[in-house]
């Protein structure tokens, strides 16, 4: 049976749902099911990272990560190391593998932008970029804080934006 969604791969997941009091059954391949957020294995240990790494292995030939052969200049971790262990070797790995990690994060978390706690202690030592990008990030977080009516954080953020702008 072909997947109802992509019509290409073999359907492996059979999802029975009640929508508007009608029973429907969707037949999906594991990839489409994964994209729709359907757990592809019932039972213990649903592990998105493991699944993702396994998929990365399968599609390794055309994946940018496989082509990337250069090791992290700081700790020497390679893309192959990461594929094998699922672990990065140091904080510089995050900068080194950044473009590829971004797509991974989107799949795992549905987002790449941290909106949680600010690390105020590291204001001058944040890894990555200069003041412009930092101000941009802070603005996005300010909007988010206002949206969440977290005015204390919003005030903090506004101060930090002013600080950075006045340095410029």
């Amino acid at each position, binding site marked *: 049976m072909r997947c109802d969604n992509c019509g290409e791969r073999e359907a492996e997941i059979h999802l029975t749902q009640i929508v508007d009091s009608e029973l429907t059954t969707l037949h999906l391949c594991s990839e489409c099911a994964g994209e729709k957020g359907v757990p592809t294995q019932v039972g213990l240990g649903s592990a998105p990272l493991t699944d993702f790494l396994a998929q990365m292995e399968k599609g390794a030939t055309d994946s940018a990560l496989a082509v990337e052969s250069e090791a992290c200049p700081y700790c020497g971790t390679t893309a192959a190391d990461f594929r094998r262990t699922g672990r990065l070797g140091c904080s510089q790995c995050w900068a080194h593998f950044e473009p590829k990690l971004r797509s991974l994060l989107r799949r795992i*978390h549905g987002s790449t932008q941290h909106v949680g706690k600010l690390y105020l*202690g590291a204001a001058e030592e*944040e890894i990555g970029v200069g003041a412009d990008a930092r101000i941009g990030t802070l603005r996005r977080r300010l909007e988010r804080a206002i949206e969440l009516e977290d005015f204390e954080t919003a005030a903090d953020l506004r101060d930090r934006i002013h600080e950075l702008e006045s340095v410029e």
Partner: protein
Amino acid sequence: MEDADAVRDRGIDWLAGGGPDHEVVLSTRVRVARNLQGFPFSIRAGVDDRRRVLARVQSALEGGTSLVEPELLEMESLDSGQRRLLLERHLVSRDLIGNPDEVAPPGAALVLEGRRALGLMINEEDHLRVQTLLNGLQLVQAWQEVSRLDEELGGRLPYAFHHEFGFLTSCPTNVGTGLRASVLIHLPGLVLTKEIRKVLQGISQVGLTYRGLYGEGSEVVGNFFQISNQTTLGKTEEELIDHLARIVGQVIQYEKQARAILLREAPTVLEDKVGRAYGILSHAYTLPFDEMMNLISGLRLGLTLKLLRTPRVETLNRVMIFGQTAHLERMAGRSLDDADADVHRAAFVRRALAEDEEAARSAGPERDLPAGTDGDDER
């Protein structure tokens, strides 16, 4: 070794039972993962890096106010039995203690606040795992404790932080907030009414995940499940906590409904299950751990439905932890093979149940015992 009893009764405050929603929820755990700038993550760290990380964290702890008289247990200074005690108490991960039969990983340490479980693991997969464990469902409280300690440490240590990705971790599944909140929940009603599969599927569709009692990949024993957030990035800590709390609240409601239905529709089946569990636990002479857990599940259910008067929930919690092999070995004063451990476990459980019966007998009227035989007028 001079600190032969270094582990003692550390970090087991939460066993006292009780806490909000304690009929269904045993405990709440919250941790955040943090790494220090300038050091490779554990997977790439050499022995020197690990020792330097430990030293940095140790000095950051000095003079702090979030932990009252923190104590630091270096894994290298503990023998294999002591390390397994900590593991059985859910205070450390397998990663932190290493292979119990080999030398402990250098620089790996646990910081605890006496009997409380608030503290941190040092040189785990990430340099720091700031963590706490509380009884019952106390997600907000647990988050606040961890957050306060994290902020204090963050003011003294250079955390690795990225303008877009947030707090950097070794594994991309932890990045951002680094927050993992999990609730240890007992769902016998949903298992017995065969509703559990639906509930668990629902959980995985709303961005949460579940596993057995002993973390990733572990089996479900005794109808105990750990439900936790799956994602750590793109939401604030409060949103993650709130979302988990809401879903767990729903699961609690489902579980209570299931228990009520069982009690109404199949009281005899239920009483029989609870009574047999009590019978075996109070009379067995050999007791494998998984069997003990499954029977304890029955007693816990019986207690919350008032089909039993003893033992106390606290006793069940204690038995769950102290009935594990490393704890039994500690009581026996020697190492035990599997068969020996089963014998010691049975004796330990028999004694614990008998003590509670005895206490109840001297405290209350005769008809309080034996438990669960006068269920008809209770419903």
